[in-house]
Every structure is written in structure tokens, then in C-alpha cells.
């Protein structure tokens, strides 16, 4: 009997980092060595696929035998022979290496639209994309839709910009279409500067054609002939796969002159950014392509009127573009109905921090934070208590447990003091100090400030200094009020979104966790026992067995005591490194 065997190996950045390429060639070698194709009349193929979002389990390998799928996790090269021998040759999956239930619940509770191809098709093969309906939407848009019809469909879909601000994409395109100009540009924003975010990277690496197809449709809708994909140079795999995809499109005449046999010309090139967070801001990004310093400019004109080189420009995020082919093919109302009244469709989030399952998740807009954290994320790691979730990247706010049931969309997140941003989510548990968390995020934004405007350049630095002294136990009366005043001022007076949102982590933690600030300032105490200068380590005399383990490891020689009698820490010598805390087997050292 003929068997069809497909081996899919994750070669996203996460997969490659865990050795995906090597695992892939190990499988290929095994196939060649057994000559399986010739002897068993079987068709056995390997495929590189993109990221499926569960990177903590990489390298993930799917083995499909006549469509029946088994997924292995943490696959290493030395595991390949056994999987090959027992599973592929003999037909018995290696049960101890396959993924567990959490892998399936993680995926089942999601709704994949943008990510539907990631992890399924080979991103380096245009035919794989075409086989799943790729470029049909573009063909339809180019050959049988008018620009107005496309704009209409996008408007009806209720798609809003996935780059953070949530501007209705249809409206943006409509403006782009209305402005008259010989030269217009389409730009895809693939800068993705938020630390820890990798949704756009996963799409560019795992399904690059969907982004290109979205841009082709946008070009037709707005009448533009030239496009740029702005990708940071730190994403070499994304750059490589996008370039490969563009080259293949040229061969197929999906890009270039007279595309799809029409009389419409559209061409694309990649622009590699040097990797500044602020270059993700639309105006800074365009200055960067122009060869200038990536510095935001005041929005006297909309980009659709005067953008790149002062020409009308439509700029959208990677995920925004990747949604477009689906909207054109499956219909605007299908997409619209996936989301809420105010925002259609799904959104990809990267969920990290203290949850059991970290990775990329795609859910319809309007689901609750609770659903994302508990149903998909599997709850808090180590079954500790949830404290807050920080959404929207480094300039988002921290949302406490009381708001876990809000429906996630642009407005509701703003209402509770946070933002959608690019979709980063960091889960914090009881062991996180909120003052320290706010400081951590502000450190990033203040360093990435382009320095152009006063509130952001100096104001965020001063906020950071105040937070610094609070966490060092040097906080003063009035610091909380000063932080609030500065935060509100920076939010209102900054030129671009970076400054306007930078105070969010501070303002939101002041709103929900003010008592933690007060404890630091008034009582010189860090409730979560995180801030080094505010912790004291003491030995509980009744528990201490006098084993001396702590004394042996203390780098400062701060522990006194003879064997079998309770030991003591000399506070004047203690450097608060916490080594003794970890070394004590009897848990007799207190941290507070």
C-alpha cells in the first residue's frame, strides 16, 4: 500500500535557534540512507515550516502519515534515528517524545487567521502558498475589482491597524485612493521594535507571501506602483524569506510589469532598518527610508497626503497586510463577525512572563484577558497568584486582576490605562514588584527616545531617576505626585507615540498598585521582596539546624555561627545577593 509521509520541521527563528535546520537534515539523511522511497513505494517528503507560536517546545516536528498527524517536541538530532525507525518505518509513534495535552489546548482555544499558514506550509516555496489558495485574492483584486470595491471591502471588514494605534485600515486606504498623484507608495511596517514581540517576525518568516499579497491588493486599491517592506536587519531570516518570495513573484509575474496579465504595474523592495525602536513610528520609518535619521516629524499632513518623499503613502503593519487576502477571499462580513462591534477579526498576541504556556496566540478580538491567560496560557506558572498583565509592549500599562474580564480591543484596553500596542503581553505574578516593573519598561523607552522633544528626552529620564530612588529606598514624600504630574505632562506634550505612551507603565501601576509605591517610600519596604536595597535576609533561629551551608556560600562572609547552633547574618556585611537563601535546605532563611 502506498503511504504518504510528510515530515514538517519548524524552522522559524525559534526553531532554527534550537537546531531546526540540523534536525531537518538529519531526517533528510535518514530518508536517503534507507532509500525508503524506492523500497516501500512510499512517498516521504520533508518540509520546512514557520513558527507555530509555541517556541518553548521547539524543535517541533510533525509527522503526517496519510494525513494522520503526530507532533514531537524538543526534537534533537540524536532523537531522529529512533523516531525514524520506530515511527516512520515501523509505524509506532515514540509516545514518550510526543507533545502533551497542553500543546493541543494551546492551539485549540485559538482562532488562526493570520497564522493559519504558519507552521503548515513551506514559506520558501511559492507553490505551497498557491496550493492553499495563495494569490487568488490578489488575482481577483487586480483583474476583477475596482479600487473602490477593494476599499469598500476593507472598510466593511472593520479591520483596524495592527501596528498599535488601531486606525481603521479601510479609511486609510480610502484617503490614499482619493489623493491624486502620479507617484504613490505602499509601505509595510515590519520594524517590530518591541522587545519580546515576534508576531510580525513569525508572519514574515512563516508566511511571507501573505504580506506581499496584501500589499499588491493595497497597491491596486490606492493606485500605487511602488512598495517597500521595512524590516529590521536583526531579522535576517525574515529578510531572506521575503526576498525569496519577492523573487518568486517576479518569476510568476505577480510583481513587476503588467501583473497577473493586467496592465497594472507594481513592484516591491525590502528596506533593512538598523534597528531603532522609534523607526517603527510611521514618520520616522519614512525618514529612515529616505536616508535620513529615523526621527518622527510632526503630523502636519497625513501620510496618505504627504508621506515618503512627500508623496502619498499608505503604510500598514505586517499583520494588517496579512489579513487582507483573507478578507478579499472569504468576505468582509466573515472577517467582521470574528471580532467585536468596534474592531473586526483576530489579533496575534505574544504572551510571555509567568504563564505556563508562553508563545504566540491568535484570538478573535473581544475575548477576555482571562481566556488568554488561563485557557490558552494554561494559568500561572508554579500555581502562584496572578498579579497583573502588562499589555502593548514596553509602553503599555499593567492591568490588575479586577479587569481580567474586559473584552480585549483597542478601546477597552485604553479605558483601563493600557494599550493594544503591537500585542505584547507579559504576565506578572505575586513575585513581581510593580515599581520595579514600571522602572524596567521605562528604562527601555527612555533609552530609545529619539531625543527630539523635551518631555520624552528629559522627562522620561527624570521619571526613571525618581523610580530609581524609590526602589533604592531613597524615595521622598511627594515623589508619587511628582511622578503623576510628570507622567501626565509627558503623555500630553510629547511629539510622537513613543513619548505619549512611555509613562503608561508608571501611571497604570500608580493607579492600581499605589500601595506598593507607598510601602517603598514610607516604610522602605518592597512588598514583593524584589528591590535589593529594601530586602533583608534573616535566619529563623528555630528552623536553622546549624548545618553551615549558608556560611559556606556567602560571598561577603556575613554569616556567623558554629555548627549545630543557629546561625546569624551580620546585616552590616550582607550584600543581599540571596545566595544563602537558595543554599538553605531547611528554608530557614527569610527574605522580606
Amino acid at each position, binding site marked *: 500500500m502506498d503511504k504518504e509521509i510528510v515530515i514538517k520541521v519548524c524552522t522559524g527563528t525559534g526553531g532554527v535557534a534550537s537546531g531546526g535546520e540540523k534536525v531537518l537534515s538529519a531526517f533528510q539523511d535518514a530518508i536517503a540512507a534507507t532509500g525508503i522511497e524506492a523500497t516501500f513505494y512510499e512517498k516521504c517528503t520533508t518540509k520546512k515550516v514557520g513558527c507555530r507560536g509555541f517556541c518553548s517546545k521547539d524543535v517541533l516536528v510533525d509527522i503526517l502519515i496519510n494525513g494522520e498527524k503526530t507532533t514531537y517536541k524538543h526534537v534533537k538530532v540524536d532523537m531522529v534515528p529512533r523516531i525514524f525507525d520506530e515511527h516512520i518505518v515501523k509505524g509506532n509513534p515514540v509516545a514518550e517524545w510526543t507533545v502533551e495535552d497542553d500543546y493541543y489546548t494551546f492551539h485549540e482555544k485559538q482562532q488562526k487567521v493570520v497564522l493559519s499558514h504558519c507552521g503548515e506550509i513551506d514559506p520558501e516555496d511559492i507553490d505551497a502558498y498557491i496550493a492553499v489558495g495563495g494569490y487568488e485574492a490578489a488575482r481577483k483584486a487586480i483583474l476583477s475589482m475596482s479600487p473602490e470595491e477593494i476599499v469598500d471591502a476593507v472598510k466593511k471588514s472593520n479591520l483596524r491597524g495592527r501596528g498599535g494605534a488601531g486606525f481603521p485600515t479601510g479609511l486609510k486606504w480610502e484617503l490614499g485612493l482619493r489623493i491624486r498623484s502620479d507617484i504613490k507608495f505602499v509601505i509595510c511596517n515590519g520594524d517590530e521594535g518591541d522587545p519580546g514581540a515576534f508576531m510580525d517576525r513569525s508572519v514574515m518568516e512563516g508566511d511571507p507571501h501573505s504580506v506581499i499579497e496584501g500589499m499588491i491588493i493595497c497597491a491596486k486599491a490606492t493606485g500605487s506602483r511602488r512598495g517597500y517592506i521595512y524590516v529590521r536587519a536583526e531579522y535576517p531570516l525574515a529578510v531572506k524569506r521575503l526576498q525569496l518570495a519577492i523573487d518568486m513573484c517576479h518569476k510568476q509575474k505577480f510583481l513587476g510589469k503588467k501583473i497577473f496579465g493586467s496592465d497594472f504595474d507594481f513592484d516591491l523592495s525590502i528596506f533593512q532598518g538598523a534597528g531603532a525602536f522609534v523607526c517603527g513610528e510611521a514618520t520616522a520609518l519614512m525618514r529612515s527610508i529616505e536616508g535620513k535619521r529615523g526621527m518622527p516629524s*510632526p503630523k502636519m499632513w497625513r501620510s496618505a497626503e504627504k508621506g515618503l518623499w512627500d508623496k502619498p503613502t499608505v503604510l500598514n503593519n505586517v499583520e494588517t497586510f496579512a489579513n487582507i487576502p483573507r478578507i478579499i477571499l472569504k468576505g468582509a462580513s466573515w472577517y467582521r463577525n470574528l471580532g467585536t462591534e468596534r474592531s473586526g477579526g483576530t489579533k496575534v498576541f505574544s504572551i510571555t512572563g509567568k504563564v505556563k504556556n508562553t508563545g504566540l496566540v491568535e484570538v478573535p478580538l473581544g475575548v477576555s484577558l482571562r481566556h488568554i491567560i488561563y485557557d490558552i496560557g494554561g494559568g500561572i506558572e508554579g500555581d502562584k497568584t496572578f498579579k497583573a498583565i502588562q499589555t502593548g509592549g514596553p509602553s503599555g500599562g499593567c492591568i490588575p486582576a479586577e479587569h481580567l474580564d474586559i473584552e480585549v480591543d483597542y478601546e477597552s484596553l485604553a479605558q483601563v490605562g493600557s494599550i493594544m500596542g503591537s500585542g505584547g503581553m507579559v504576565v506578572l505574578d505575586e513575585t513581581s514588584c510593580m515599581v520595579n516593573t514600571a522602572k524596567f519598561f521605562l528604562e527601555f523607552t527612555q533609552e530609545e527616545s529619539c531625543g*527630539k522633544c523635551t518631555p520624552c528626552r528629559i522627562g522620561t529620564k*527624570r521619571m526613571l*531617576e525618581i523610580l530609581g530612588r524609590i526602589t533604592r529606598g531613597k524615595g521622598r514624600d511627594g515623589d508619587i505626585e511628582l511622578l503623576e*504630574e510628570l507622567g501626565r*505632562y509627558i503623555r500630553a*506634550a*510629547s*511629539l510622537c507615540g513613543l513619548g505619549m505612551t512611555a509613562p503608561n507603565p508608571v501611571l497604570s501601576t500608580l493607579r492600581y498598585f499605589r500601595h506598593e509605591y507607598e510601602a517603598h517610600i514610607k516604610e522602605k519596604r518592597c512588598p514583593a521582596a524584589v528591590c535589593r536595597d529594601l530586602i533583608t535576609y534573616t535566619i529563623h533561629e528555630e528552623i536553622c539546624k546549624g548545618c553551615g551551608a549558608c556560611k559556606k556560600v556567602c560571598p561577603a562572609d556575613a554569616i556567623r555561627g558554629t555548627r549545630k547552633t543557629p546561625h546569624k547574618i551580620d546585616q552590616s556585611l550582607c550584600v543581599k545577593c540571596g545566595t544563602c537563601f537558595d543554599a538553605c535546605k531547611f528554608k530557614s532563611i527569610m527574605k522580606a
Partner: protein
Amino acid sequence: MVTFKIDGQKVTVRKLSTILDAARKLDIPIPTLCHHPALSPFGGCRLCIVEIKGSPKPVTSCTTFARDGMEVKTSSPQLENMRKMTLELLLSDHPTDCMVCERAGDCKLQELAYFYGIKENRFIGERRTYDKKDGNPFIARDMEKCILCGQCVRICDEIQGVGAIDFAYRGLKTKICPPFDKDLNCEFCGQCVAICPTGALTGKMWKQKGRQNFTKIDTICPYCGCGCNITLHVRRNEVMRVSSKPETLNEGWLCPKGRFGYQFISSPDRLTKPLIRTISKEYSASDTWNIPPYPPLAKGGRRGGSDIFREVSWDEAFDYIAERLRDIREKSGPDAIAGLASARCTNEENYLFQKFMRAVIGTNNIDHCARY
């Protein structure tokens, strides 16, 4: 045309005018530090914020177009508080150096700090520190005083077309400097010095020559045919600085010679007595092309008494010139004579010289670097 209201006053301005343009027209003061009417809008300092009725956040008036029916307020307790905050922040990253600063008294930052009465600062913290090394003889840069208004960057790029400096680094460490933070190596036109609102950029030769109380004398730059308007800042018959007014033919822009090339006026090297060239025997008339190099200047800069020049009285000099010119003119005609004058003479002297050549000698063979 667009008609709207600022602080209750109706104003009509041309389309694409900013709120700031309109306020200036009505003479309503709005503090600014980064705006310049001749440069592209920037929106960096955030001092020029105003409130627009119906808008949730203040906007910067220098980068917001006026729209029909707008109602703008240029001052309110909230706005003034925010402006004060901006100034406080700027000053928290600024040396309090006014007493020895070249720009004190003429500094926009100092002026605003004075108007807003900023004496104490709630935001004392880290400050940028740079070592000040500049190889060039014209421009002194003290970037600790820079408020990042970007006017120098824009004037260098947009007016001068040079682009020698730009923003570099990020966050608090942001700095205006040449590429790779190298030493300044440009045309040294000093446009940036002229436009800088603070003491960050100053003329090297201004140092400790006085800040105010100059006699200002408007004149025309003699260096070239453009004829830029310049203003000499004079004290005790010595030119201390040169500037140019924006409402002039050259819109206030100058080149390095016009701006910095004035020391010759009071140079001790200047000739004060006429000299007649004498050629020593060994270099006879047949060998005029081989005149040896000028001997080095004697201490004090006098050339008199060398074997090439002989110091003479004015009478002797004039007699000599008249005799030689008459001789040549009679023998070979007026066109055998040509005159070259110097841009470092006054405009009046140069006028007289060409008049003399044309009317007295009778030739048009006359030139000078400002062209006749």
C-alpha cells in the same frame, strides 16, 4: 484664506498658515525655542503649545495649520504649567553658567527662564557632560548647553546646503554633532552660530570680548559682489562681532568671510606707512621673476627697512606713483595700466579707486574681488 479666533481675537490668514504664524501677526506672544520662520517646522521643544476648543490635548502651534472656525487659547493655567515643566526639564540638563556664558543677555533659554521665574528645579538629575575640543578657529561648541532645538541642523542642511551636522545618539545622550562624532570640519559659515538660541554655539573670537553694550553699525560686507548687509558690533573703535539682520537683502545669512573675517581691521600687521619696493642689485631688471621671497616680518609686524621695501613719506610715495603712471600712460597709452584693489579696503576707498582709474587714468582695466 482662513478665518479663526486666537484668544478671542478674529484673524484671517493665508491657507496653510500655522497658528503660530497667525499669533505672530496679531502680536500675541507664544514662547518658542525651536521654531524659525525660514526653516522647516520641527516641533521639538514643545513650548509653543496652545489649546484648541474641542481638542482633548494641547497642540504645538508651530506645526498646526489654522483651520476655519478654530478657537485657540494661547494661555491657561494648564498650558503655563506645562511650559514651566518643559523649561524646568531643559534647565535640569543645563549648566547654570549664565554669568560666564557668551550668550547671557541674548539667550532665549535664559530669557524664558526669567519670564517663568524658574529659580528652583524639582528635577535635578543626570546631566550630559562632554569634553569641549574644537580644532577649528571659528566655532566653539559647548554641547552641554544645547537644548536640541535642531535649528543648526536645519539651517546647515536647508539654507547652507551642507549638512555637516545632525542628531546622533538616543535618549538623554542625544547630541548634535558631525558624522561619527568627529571634529567639526565644514565651511565654517557660522550660520549655526547665528541661529543657535543658546550659548551652545558661539564664535571663538567672541570669547570674553563682551556681550552687550556694543555700538552697532550697519554696513555692507566688502568681500564680494553679493553685498550682504552686515552689522558691526563695535566697542572702543574695535569690531568685536559681525552679525546680519534677517530683514535684509541677504535675509541675515552670511558666509565665513563676512561673519568671521573681520580681525584684519585692528590687526597689528597692517601697514601704517607707505613702502616703496627696492630691488637689490643681484636681482636685476632682467630677472624680475626671481625676486626672493619676502623676508619674515620683523617683530611688531613692520616691514620697513628691509632691502626690498623702503619706508617713505606720503609725499614721496605720491610723487613716485604720479611720475610712474604719467610716464607709462604717455609712452604706452592708458590701457597699459591696470588696477587691482582689495576687499579689505572700505567700500568708499574702492569707489574712489575705480573712479580714479576710469576718469583720471582713462582705462577700464580695473578689478577687485567684489567686482566693479
